[in-house]
């Protein structure tokens, strides 16, 4: 068995989500090769060789790969695929964009967002917004897999000693072009990596009111998240959405403020270790999953929390 694992990075550092995918891959057994594809990303490869459990790093470095366009990435991965029984990566937005293309070009199915490895061909994955867990078996020769990172511990980032090999084939399909991006800069921890997350919902009422929540987040060194209703209402940007169709988080502590607890929201946070709900409606479904609940007005509770933490 041989595994090709696609690294997640921003051309300068390795995203820790990759380390969760390494853990999932290690559970398969067999040699793991990590593919670092990007532009001017030698520093990522330098981190990759140190990750525990990696036997080889492939570095595909070209300006064509700068923005991770799925058309080009998938062509490269398919070119390398012949040597591997498994192709695996963390379910980031780039990978969600790219992996199904890899599967289709190889004429195999894709296993989306696995949460457990049962054997080399059998996995568990949530369906119906996490209201059911399916055990699925791949019948294909090559298994193409994306990993729900919240379900796997991170592999050690240090201690490994792999060699780097340069891959110099470049694929430019020429049908899509990067135009622009608006990336949100925040001094807070990243949502999917943070050990504490505090999320706000429609109950916050406005973008300005989110600052009440942000002050508590700063005290707790927490990441800020949101429900879809809060994003739709324009209180915060889309990349903060937690849920079935947003980000999946499983921090040590998740605090839901002014969030009712729709199944789509729960799908993104109910694996958190400790859940706190703050809501003025004592009947809100969020309390059914909360370890600790506070029934009351968030406009009184948040400032008090900030002051006392």
């Amino acid at each position, binding site marked *: 068995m041989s595994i090709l694992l696609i690294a997640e990075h921003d051309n300068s550092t390795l995203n820790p989500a990759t380390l969760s995918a390494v853990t999932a891959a290690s559970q398969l057994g067999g040699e793991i090769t990590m593919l670092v594809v990007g532009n001017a990303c030698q520093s990522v490869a330098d981190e990759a060789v140190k990750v525990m459990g990696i036997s080889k790093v492939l570095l595909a470095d070209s300006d064509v790969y700068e923005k991770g366009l799925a058309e080009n990435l998938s062509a490269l991965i398919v070119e390398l695929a012949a040597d591997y029984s498994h192709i695996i990566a963390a379910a980031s937005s780039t990978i969600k964009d790219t992996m199904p293309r890899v599967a289709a070009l190889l004429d195999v199915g894709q296993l989306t967002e696995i949460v457990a490895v049962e054997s080399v061909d059998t996995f568990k994955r949530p369906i119906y917004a996490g209201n059911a867990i399916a055990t699925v*078996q791949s019948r294909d020769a090559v298994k193409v897999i994306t990993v729900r990172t919240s379900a796997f511990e991170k592999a050690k980032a240090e201690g490994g000693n792999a060699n780097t090999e340069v891959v110099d084939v470049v694929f430019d399909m020429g049908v899509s072009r990067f135009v622009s*991006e608006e990336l949100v800069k925040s001094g807070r921890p990243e949502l999917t990596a943070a050990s504490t997350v505090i999320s706000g919902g429609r109950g916050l009422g406005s973008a300005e009111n989110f600052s009440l929540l942000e002050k508590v987040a700063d005290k707790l060194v927490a990441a800020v998240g949101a429900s879809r209703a809060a994003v739709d209402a324009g209180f915060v940007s889309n990349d903060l959405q937690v849920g079935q169709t947003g980000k999946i988080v499983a921090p040590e502590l998740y605090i839901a403020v002014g969030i009712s607890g729709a199944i789509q929201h729960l799908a993104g946070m109910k694996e958190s270790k400790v859940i706190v709900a703050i809501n003025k409606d004592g009947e809100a479904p969020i309390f059914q999953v909360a370890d600790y609940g506070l029934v009351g007005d968030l406009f009184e509770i948040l400032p008090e929390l900030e002051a006392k933490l």
Partner: protein
Amino acid sequence: MKIIVSVKRVIDYNVKVRVKSDNSDVDLSNVKMALNPFCEIAVEEAIRLKEAGIASEIVVVSIGPNAVQEQLRTAMALGADRAIHIETESQPEPLNVAKLLAKVMEAEEPGLVILGKQSIDSDNNQVGQMLAALTRRPQGTFASKVTVEGDKALVTREVDGGLRTLSLTLPAIVTTDLRLNEPRYAKLPDIMKAKRKPLELKTPADFGVELKQHILQLKVEAPAQRQAGIKLDSVDALIDKLKNEAKVI
């Protein structure tokens, strides 16, 4: 320009499914079914492009048993011009769906194909990307904005860190995210009119596509249930619990 919209019949998003007692699957008997919410957004986007004079015709496609015709009629009530139903016993895996849609594209030669980003039942998030790969066309997935200019589509995508805009050479494949638009409701007269719009019935064999099973579903289980915890009466009590009982702050 012709637009193809591919739609899936799924459980209504408000319904909380239960797992069957023999763990073979979820129980869908007597459950309310609907258009997949992301597909509703796909239909709406096509209608807006038609209203803006960019699209000339909207063809809506669904693959599955007879019942999917209900969702095709809904899409036509909303504004699609005609429908293609490719009949299969159950809803096939994403790669099979993509192969069938690739054949439909070959036959219909659309300028744009719009799909949902994800089915809310299987949570696969695959078909659009697979279709783009099979047809060697560019893709704009998780779109929150689409504009067509000449032979290009500008697609703003929701990505992990924010938003990213791509320029795609048409024909292109777009998959919708939640904020692309807010779908309209079908009006009663339009629901009546939709009954008379053309609906073509096809089979995979008509397209020379053989359905394959790549992934077997061995078992379906209920997830571990969380127990509701306790309600506290003050911020002080909460801080005390988090510090001394849960030890998370």
